[in-house]
């Protein structure tokens, strides 16, 4: 990024994700009036059962390089968008905890909406990140591990 007021950051983070400080990072360029944020939080139920906790595991090296690639794709596809940030959590989480945060800022709202959506869809489908869900019954399983498709390879 050549403009020092814009933001570009993808990170897998073990510590708690601070939504407020991230949204402040997005707001530094006062030419960017349209800001769209997606927060993915751990739900208290899944498949009709009560969730006790989730554990996120990542292949951090590849997740971070692929994550940065996704953000670059979003900037290229939505040229008005100048700032884009995505932080994905790792480790143990409880219902209500922030698992993933995506923010996009653009002079106008349309491209900010589209870029934010593009990033979260790609993050969910392409990053080597897994989650193990433990229900209040004690039962635990790796989400999607058997049902879903492989990552599309480049």
């Amino acid at each position, binding site marked *: 990024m050549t403009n020092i007021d814009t933001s570009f950051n993808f990170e897998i983070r073990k510590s708690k994700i601070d939504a407020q400080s991230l949204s402040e990072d997005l707001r530094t360029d006062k030419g960017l009036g349209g800001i769209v944020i997606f927060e993915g939080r751990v739900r208290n139920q899944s498949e009709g059962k009560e969730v006790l906790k989730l554990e996120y595991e990542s292949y951090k090296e590849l997740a971070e390089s692929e994550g940065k690639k996704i953000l670059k794709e979003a900037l290229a596809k939505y040229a008005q968008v100048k700032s884009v940030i995505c932080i994905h959590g790792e480790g143990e989480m409880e219902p209500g905890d922030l698992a993933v945060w995506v923010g996009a800022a653009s002079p106008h709202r349309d491209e900010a909406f589209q870029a934010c959506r593009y990033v979260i869809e790609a993050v969910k489908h*392409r990053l080597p990140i897994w989650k193990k869900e433990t229900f209040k019954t004690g039962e635990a399983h790796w989400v*999607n*591990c058997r049902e879903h498709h*492989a*990552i599309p*390879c480049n």
Partner: protein
Amino acid sequence: MSAQAPIKHIKVRYFALLREERGLDLEEIDTTAHTLEQLYKELANRYRFSLEANSLAVSQDDNFAAWGDSIKDGSTIVFIPPVAGG
């Protein structure tokens, strides 16, 4: 006697369900497998992995790779179970 396949020394990292099925997250092995697919089949057979190759992706040296890619001596290989980020 046929020519001996070259032995390559590699690292394999395991994540999520494969890590649990293997019981460890990193191992160094010697293999004569030529492609990544051959290597997975060899390991899946040895450790009774429950996931079929066609439900996995694969990486070599922290880059996504194709199943038919040759194994490079000294590389690090990861078999990537279906993902569930977000």
